């Protein structure tokens, strides 16, 4: 019980605790077999992506000029995958917004049909997942009065129904994504006007930029079936509501195109440019230039990586065409001298997938490849080369037939269908060479590329 003993104990206890170790640190490192990895890309993470991605040239849908058949070819080996019987013959052919579906529009029969090309990409968030399946006829259809302009932008396809004055059916627009088509959606986003018109509509996110036909007493259009105004519509619960109206600013509106910054409409007195600014659109008018020789721009092309729009003015009945480059930023228009061959009449136009080239296919079987060059801060489009893609006797062209083309969206390639030779040529734009030939046992009327477009 004496204090001395207790203190001794305490000291002993503390020192015994201290003796068990005095600030030791020991590190043991054993090297294990290293991990070696090949780097295809910068990131290891992207290896995972590759697991789900499919490298395919795509597929080609071709319609038969003499029947209601539509054939789908595999562009990896140019083999025929399947042939489908469309409900009607003489239909127009295009592709869905993300190139999965062939879109077949029968204006006369008020019907839009879809054929699944079988190649598509889904965004699984952590990776992009590609699918490759057999082509299939989709049960999904769209119906409406006089479907005419069918146009994709930004993963949305807008089908413009002109409507019918005789039966009092107004014009309308339906907007579907590839997912909607695949899911055979029952609820299609729709805008219905109160009058018929030969119009056009372009989807931008949850907006729809559409032509508007005003009352005949107000219209500035010479041909009242052509609209003269543009409305900006916003989607709410599947319906579009008008937010802005550019009234009367585009007489005889026909043709429209858009890139990420601007929307351009062809009008009889020039082109109307709309530009989004703080969620409000602002308009700008570019007057026709003298080189148009009194013609008007009725078709406009755009590419989202290209600032310049290309406007086309051509006479009805196959006169020569005047191409113009439109700079929407500066509000300028200038003629493009594409040095056409004598008597050549363009039958098809389009930007290459990367926007590097603008292509003109004419009825003489030439493919003119234009490219842009910078001069004085302006992009000038000039003829770069001209490829002769047909040596056939043009007089053998079937009645009502024409050359047609479609542009691949994953490579600098273009596919040209030749009704005389009954084949589709694969043309590499980089080399200017024909790299493939798909033989057909029918006369092609139209071709459309399907597949997984390269992401931009």
């Amino acid at each position, binding site marked *: 019980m004496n204090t001395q003993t*207790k203190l001794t104990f*305490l000291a002993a206890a503390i020192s015994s605790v201290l003796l068990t170790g*005095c*600030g*030791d*640190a020991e590190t043991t490192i054993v090297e294990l077999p*290293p991990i070696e990895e090949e780097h295809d890309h*910068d990131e290891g993470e992207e290896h995972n992506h590759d697991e789900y991605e499919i490298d395919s040239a795509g597929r080609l849908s071709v319609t038969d000029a003499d029947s209601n058949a539509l054939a789908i070819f595999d562009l990896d080996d140019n083999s025929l995958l399947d042939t489908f019987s469309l409900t009607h013959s003489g239909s127009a052919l295009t592709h869905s917004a993300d190139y999965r579906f062939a879109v077949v529009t029968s204006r006369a029969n008020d019907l839009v049909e879809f054929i699944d090309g079988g190649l598509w990409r889904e965004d699984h968030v952590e990776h992009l997942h590609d699918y490759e399946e057999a082509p299939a006829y989709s049960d999904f259809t769209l119906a409406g009065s006089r479907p005419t302009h069918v146009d994709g932008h930004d993963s949305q396809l807008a089908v413009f129904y002109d409507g019918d004055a005789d039966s009092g059916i107004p014009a309308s627009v339906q907007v579907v994504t590839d997912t909607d088509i695949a899911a055979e959606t029952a609820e299609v986003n729709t805008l219905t006007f109160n009058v018929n018109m030969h119009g056009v509509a372009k989807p931008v996110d949850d907006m729809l930029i559409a032509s508007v036909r005003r009352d005949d007493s107000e219209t500035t259009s010479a041909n009242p079936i052509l609209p003269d105004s543009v409305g900006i519509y916003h989607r709410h619960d599947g319906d579009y509501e008008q937010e802005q109206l550019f009234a009367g600013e585009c007489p005889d509106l026909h043709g429209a195109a858009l890139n*990420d*910054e601007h929307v351009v409409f062809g009008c009889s007195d020039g082109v109307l440019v709309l530009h989004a600014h703080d969620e409000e659109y602002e308009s700008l008018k570019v007057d026709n230039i003298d080189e148009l020789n009194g013609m008007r721009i009725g078709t406009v092309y755009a590419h989202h990586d290209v600032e310049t729009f290309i406007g086309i003015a051509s006479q009805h009945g196959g006169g020569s065409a005047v191409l113009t480059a439109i700079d929407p930023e500066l509000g300028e228009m200038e003629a493009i001298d594409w040095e056409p061959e004598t008597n050549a009449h363009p039958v098809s136009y389009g930007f290459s997938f990367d926007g590097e080239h603008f292509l003109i296919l004419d009825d003489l079987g030439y493919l003119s490849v234009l490219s842009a060059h910078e001069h004085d801060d302006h992009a000038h489009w000039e003829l770069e080369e001209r490829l002769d893609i047909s040596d056939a006797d043009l007089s053998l062209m079937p009645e009502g037939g024409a050359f047609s083309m479609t542009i691949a969206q994953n490579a600098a390639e273009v596919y040209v269908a030749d009704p005389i030779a009954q084949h589709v040529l694969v043309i590499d734009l980089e080399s200017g060479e024909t790299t493939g030939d798909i033989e057909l046992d029918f006369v092609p009327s139209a071709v459309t590329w399907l597949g997984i477009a390269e992401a931009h």
Partner: protein
Amino acid sequence: MKLNKLAIVMTMLLPGISQAAEINGQALNQNGQPLAKAEIEIESLNVSVTADDNGYFSLPSVNACEYVLHIHAPGYAHLHETIEVSDNSSEQLAFRLERSPIEVIDVIAAPMHMSIMESASPVNVLGGETLRRQQAATLGDTLEKLPGVQSNFHGNVASTPIIRGLSGPRVLIAQNGLDVSDVSRVGPDHSVASEASTSQQIEVLRGPATLFYGSGAIGGVVNVVDGRVPSDNDTRGEWLLETDSVNNQKLGSFNITTGAGDLGVYADGYWRESDDYDTPVAPDVDEPDAARSVENSAEESNGFTVGASYLLDDGYVGIAVEQFNREYGIPGHTHGHEESSDDEHDHEHTEAEEEQVFADLEQTKVQLLGELSVNSNWLSSISFRAGYTDYEHAEIEEGVVGTLFENTTSEVRIELMHTPLADWQGGLSLHYKKSEVAAQGEEAFTPPSDAEMVALALMEERHFGDFLVQLGARVERVTLDAPEVLLPQLSAHDHDEAAEDVHDHDHDHEAESSVTRVFNVAQEFTPVSLSAGVVWDFTPGYNAAISVSRAQRAPSASELLSFGPHIGTSTYEVGALFALSGNEDSALSLSSSAIDLETSNNIDLTLRKISGDVGFVFNAFYNQVDNYYYQVNTGLFAESGHDHGDEEESEEHDHSDELPVYLFRAADAILHGFEAQVAWQVTDEFKAQFFSDYVRARLKDGGDLPRTPPLRVGTQLSYQTESLSAHLDITHYAKQDRIDASETVTDGYTLVDAFVAYDFNVMSQDMSVYLKGTNLTDEEARVHTSFLKDIAPRPGRSVGVGLRGYF
């Protein structure tokens, strides 16, 4: 062998047989008025009673002996009085308590006396009204008005306390004495998994506290205490509803304790939601015209705890389960790939794709707590704490989990308090903790590791007349096992060099294969901590204290094994296991120098005036840390690894996706500074308080440590009547110009906060309605200690209203 000796000694200490006696007394205030509700305890016996409305109390029968009574009441200085109890005495004793303008709250369940006024080492306890007034959404912000504690303010969504300039793996955050077990120690953007609004008090130990908590506490401890395992079943509770304007915060919280018979039951819960907060100026210094709010600083959290205990005659044992959920935006945590501005077409895409990252944190915590008074010859009480936590924290970008952090921790702590041994009081603490920490994903800069700790500590104290001597020692065995430590072939490069051969560099990356070396790393540390302190009551009402300690810490997994991008700090972190190699293939290789313990040698001086109308506490400290682990900028840059999907079309080498490489290394550091706190009870209603703190943190060989808190001075004026209270806080943060090479000078600023509360009674429930204003002058306040200093200043002016109830 040792145990045998212990048994023999204990047997010798058996007290003689004596008769039972009763202690009766009255607690009085400085004017001799009865002091209602004073607490009276005999610590050596672990018994306590509460005085009645007239201050009278009676302690149950005790053996005739000499006892130390500890008498305390809110607003009064604690009184320690030695009394001699003789057989059958029934003497009426009077105890007079002196007023203390500085609030004194004891640290709960500490093995020795711990309070702001009594212990050799400095302690703060935030509790009661003050806690409710200062509680914030994050722990650092809650505690930042305490002297010596500042916050590393991380855009209102996360913050961790910085104690005397130290934070991260040097400050341990505990909940009821057990490690909070989150990942807040490794990243400033990781929130602490603990909630202030349901807590009862928050204890802060400044300076080395490894003695009590081990390796992680070399710089201090923050212990959040709540009553989740009730030690009694008196029905009580509180609830609170509050809303604040600056971030549209809505908070609701409650806690309730009740029970019947032998059963105590507890529940608490809270729910909080806030939007992005507004700032007095545009948050990003580089974008002065931007909107005045910090994007992606919204938060939503909720939690719920239930506990039950079995109440024994001489103790309790119980279990509680908590579910803690928190979802918050991480401001500044955007993984931008800025594209060249010529490329206008891509622009829209890029802007739309700029990701906002948010964290989704989830924790389940089970705690088993118990305390038992033992009527044994040598043991007076046993306290037992065990915890199991399962923590998961996902950082989500574009709807996908970018990085997932997991921490599973099991911990047991047993404290055996002995009966006084030659008047020495104290006990032995046995402590075991095992943490499995893993991170997967882009930001998994630290490989998975298991850390295990076993510790034995002894803490003793004894009064020698006017002196209180406190001694402690602790030895630990810490093992850190990481079976797969990766050393990628990092082609880190200097920006100047790289500019010329950009293409070469790219090709190196793409064409060749790279080799990642893999190591199995096992580490074993034996940190030892020793501490000795003396408190001297040199004259009535005053004391002076000195505390000397030597504390050791095993470096953490992140300090040793890291290798990867850490977006929270915008650095590429490389642990101390690695070193620069000077080799062309790979800039970094295994370090050849030994990994050593970090050792702190700390001396603390304290002078206090503990009672009277004026009270003060002055602390000065000098802390020399050998082998201080810190990060140095290597001047190299490495890919952040944050490309998302689409490949860059431009061939240009894009530096925005690179991070500076910071390497951990150890060097000797010195931290010194002071804290001062003065309170003056001017009248019964009016009180004025003043505080200041300062720390200087530098390397012994020259150079300042980064993110060191600046000098602070502050005042608090309070006015308190029965039903009305008002507080006005003015705190000035000085300019910080003692900076590390990677930092910039931060301007000083002054914050003005006010608080007014009105107490009333509705249906026999005490209620309080309050109005609070923070940053009333709408001052631009950039926090030097924050990693987001230049992009997220403190919130602007905010007005909050709230309603509280107690029963």
